[in-house]
């Protein structure tokens, strides 16, 4: 299912091998990656044959337990570490073939990154931290400070611009990190476990804030997390990694409903499906003769948000698409089944998203 539009990020068989012997082993096999012999030589495989595209405005969440290679993959794509084998294209340009100057240019104009530990410069104020990417580009102090001030307002830190990072709470610090990464208006936004260091309540708040920003900014996003719930909340698509391998890359709904491997099923089992699935994934085919209730729901609505209404109706409820046409129906039986039933006997429209 290829799109004619060029992907913003394209990875082709990306490998990252750590270890002193990596080069030797690779030379022997003529650059071909042979995982067996690499592991034997004591190498660690950070990323193992990752291929995927990310399109403009899409948010791909990379999920996996710690040590699964998420950060490594992200750092290959931002070229903070050198990829061992494979190709990466940024807007169609060969990232790995760029020289230092071109790379710096790409980073200065197209990429922004947010870090787990915030990575703020301790000696600079909030404003100066945010202005750093602008200043290294050579923008005048006056302009960069004005722009940085806009960013301060955007992340709702107004009044803190002259504070130092150490004077801020974790959530506020990460807001600064976010503002800094957005200061140059990059089209790609990389976030490496941005909220993992925060308390649960703050994390929720920051996720909301993040969704708010994304609804305004429409960046192309790679978001790394080890928290499956977070991934489900935010993602357009999720890539689940294990030991460097991307085990499955798909929409949240499809991952929850069709885990590709036993490993992924372990994550999905405890997921509250009604919080993930949209109406269209479980709706029944519309039969013109059905007696429908007065209320309707949108096909993209998450079940959790409409469950109460559907459950309180005796009659089936119509599911509408963007053009307000009826595309299916929901009844309380299905909802109850989704919320309390077994996974396997769901009336599921597997390819719901792709049909749409």
């Amino acid at each position: 299912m290829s799109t004619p539009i060029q992907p913003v990020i394209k990875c082709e068989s990306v490998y990252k091998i750590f270890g002193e012997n990596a080069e030797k082993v690779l030379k022997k096999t003529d650059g071909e990656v042979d995982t067996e012999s690499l592991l034997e030589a004591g190498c660690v495989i950070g990323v193992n044959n990752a291929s995927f595209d990310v399109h403009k405005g899409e948010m791909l969440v990379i999920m996996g337990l710690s040590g699964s290679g998420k950060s490594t993959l992200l750092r290959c794509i931002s070229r903070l570490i050198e990829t061992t084998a494979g190709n990466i294209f940024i807007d169609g340009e060969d990232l790995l073939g760029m020289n230092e100057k071109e790379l710096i240019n790409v980073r200065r104009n197209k990429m922004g990154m947010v870090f787990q530990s915030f990575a703020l410069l301790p000696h600079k104020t909030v404003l100066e931290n945010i202005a750093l990417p602008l200043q290294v580009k050579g923008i005048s102090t006056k302009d960069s400070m004005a722009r940085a001030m806009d960013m301060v307002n955007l992340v709702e830190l107004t009044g803190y611009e002259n504070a130092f990072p150490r004077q801020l709470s974790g959530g506020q610090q990460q807001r600064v990190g976010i503002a800094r990464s957005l200061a140059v208006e990059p089209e790609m936004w990389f976030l490496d476990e941005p909220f993992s260091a925060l308390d649960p309540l703050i994390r929720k708040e920051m996720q909301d804030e993040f969704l708010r920003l994304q609804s305004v900014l429409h960046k192309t996003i790679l978001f790394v997390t080890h928290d499956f719930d977070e991934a489900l909340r935010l993602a357009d698509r999720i890539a689940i990694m294990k030991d460097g391998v991307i085990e499955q890359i798909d929409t949240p709904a499809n991952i929850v409903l069709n885990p590709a491997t036993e490993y992924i099923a372990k994550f999905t089992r405890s997921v509250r499906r009604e919080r993930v699935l949209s109406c269209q994934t479980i709706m029944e085919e519309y039969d013109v003769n059905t007696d429908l209730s007065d209320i309707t729901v949108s096909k993209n609505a998450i079940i959790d948000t409409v469950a109460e209404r559907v459950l309180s109706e005796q009659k089936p409820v119509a599911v509408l698409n963007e053009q307000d046409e009826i595309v299916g129906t929901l009844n309380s039986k299905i909802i109850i089944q989704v919320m309390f039933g077994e996974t396997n006997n769901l009336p599921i429209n597997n390819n719901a998203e792709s049909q749409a």
Partner: protein
Amino acid sequence: MHYFIHHKWVQFIALLAIFFVLVMAISPVSGGNLWRFQENIFWLLPDTLNNFLKYLINDFWLVETYDIELDLTEESTMIKEFTRSLSGVILFFINLIRELLLGGVKTVVTFTSWDFISEHPWARIPALPWTAVASGAFLMGHFLGGRKLSILAGGSIIYIAVFGQWTPAMQTLSFVLVAVPLSVFLGLMMGVFAYKNKTFKIILTPLLNVAQSMPHFSYLIPVVVFFGIGDHAGAISTVIFATPPMIRLTILGLKKVSPEVLEAGLMSGCNPRQLMFKVLIPTARHDILIGVNQVIMQCLAMAVIASFIGTKGLGYDLLVSLNRLNIGEALELGISIVLIAIVLDKLSLAWANKQADYFADLPFHLHHKYSLAFFGILVVTSAIAYAISLFFPDKPNYLYFISDTQGLTTKNFWDTIVDWIITSTYQSVQSFNVFMITSILVPMKEAYLAMPVAATLFLVTGIGYLVGGLRSAIIVAAFIGFIALTPWWDRALITAYMVTFSTVTAVIIGCTVGVLCSRNTRATRVILLVCDTLQTFPSFVYLIPVIMLFGVSDLSVLIAVTVYATIPATRYTVEGLRNVPQSLQEAASMSGVNPTQRLLHVELPLAFPHIMLGINQTIIFSLFMVIIGAFIGTDDLGQLIMQSLSRSNGMGQGIILGLCVAFIGLAVDHLIHTWSDQRKQALGII
């Protein structure tokens, strides 16, 4: 049984037993090489080194030089030319700053000639009135750190001026103002380079280790040979002395920068230079600032010692007055040196912490108010000073310059006190002296000298083995073995005895004070402040009050060393105890132990590795100070180093002697660090 053999204590006791057997068995008369290494090929090392350096200077890489004034072509060597031009540059900068402060013509001469000066009497840099410098200090203090700093900086300058120490103080200041930036710059650059280049770092690390354990004096010797004597030589030896800690702290700081901060810098689009100067160095600034701070302290300490090779200033005057036993004068000079040290220390810290305000849309005169104010004050004070000189040409102009003889002085006061102390305490001090010397120092010294070299080497190697296995055994044996092979083993034993004595005393005092103070947060703060302040004093200054109270003797050296070495012992004890995790302390309290038990069973064992590092510092400090004590008169390695300074062929000897001292320090340092690291790992507190 098995348990016993593998228990460290048992092994240690066995080691001691064999050591004593060896001591008994080897007699001075028939012991031969087991008693002391006989003359061997190593004894030629100093002369060989000497000849090699001479060759380097006089015969290596010959070049032709052309002297414009004499219109002569001369033969010279590259190294001579290099050192000559380097000296010239450094001397120029020292003179420039010195003449800005004190007035003079040498800077003008550099660009013209002496003839030009004699034809044009106006062609000289006028001295700044001290009032201008003092106001400048007030302003700078205020600008950088507010009112307190302002008063400290300005007040210190006024003290110096009013007590008639203007000339030597400004000489020292100009010396320091050249040496400090140079050391900081060199240290930073080399640190950055070592951070980036692994090979360079591998080569640099052992050199740094040795450099940091070499006593001050041994830096003077090669510098005199290559650069002659004078202010520039002092500055160069100071720079060489002060750069290693700067390099080390720069590397340390850069290494500590979190990888994510580095990545954040890269992702912000920094090029390598921006990454280094906008991200890495500022983020590492805490350690780098400690480095700058150390540089300032080292430079001031060295400013005194460099007066041995002709550096003018407070240090030189201090040496002279100490030599003449003018204690009052020495005390005043010492205070000036300490004040300069503290002011520079605080100003540099405040400067580094200063932040800019971007949105303050200030009009020109407010934006530049400090520069304008300084300029205004400069004009006003100079005008007043010149006007007075103009109207009262024959009277001393107190607002311009206060000379040595015009200044206030508390000399007589101090001298009277000293006299009083000496007369009234003569009996007790004397009997204390005699007691210490006859019943502790002399027996201890003799005991050290009675050790056969084989026994000593066995002991230290054995300790090395017990602490860190074969590796440590070899390292320690190599360091100490080197000293044993030189002709100066006996001297080294004397140094070792002095260091042992003062370390033990310092550790007892320091740990006791530290433990007592750590019981109370207020006392903790006070004692840390006291340690901080005392640490800024150049080491030489410690000799002044000791000579004042105890006169000139071996014992006074040891007392000065002990006082100086007590600082790190105290400080590390307090820090170690303070850093014991709160949760552990609470857990201990909850399990019902009383405070004393808690101290003995929880806090001290946990703090012990850190305290051990303090003891390490104590030993290194003692070692340095013992060598400086040579100035008062000792008969150890330090004394020989001082002597080789004044001997024309003393260079090789001086360097080897310096290495001997360094190796003692390095051996101890290695043992303690290895032990402390193991211990910390075992306790899980790394």
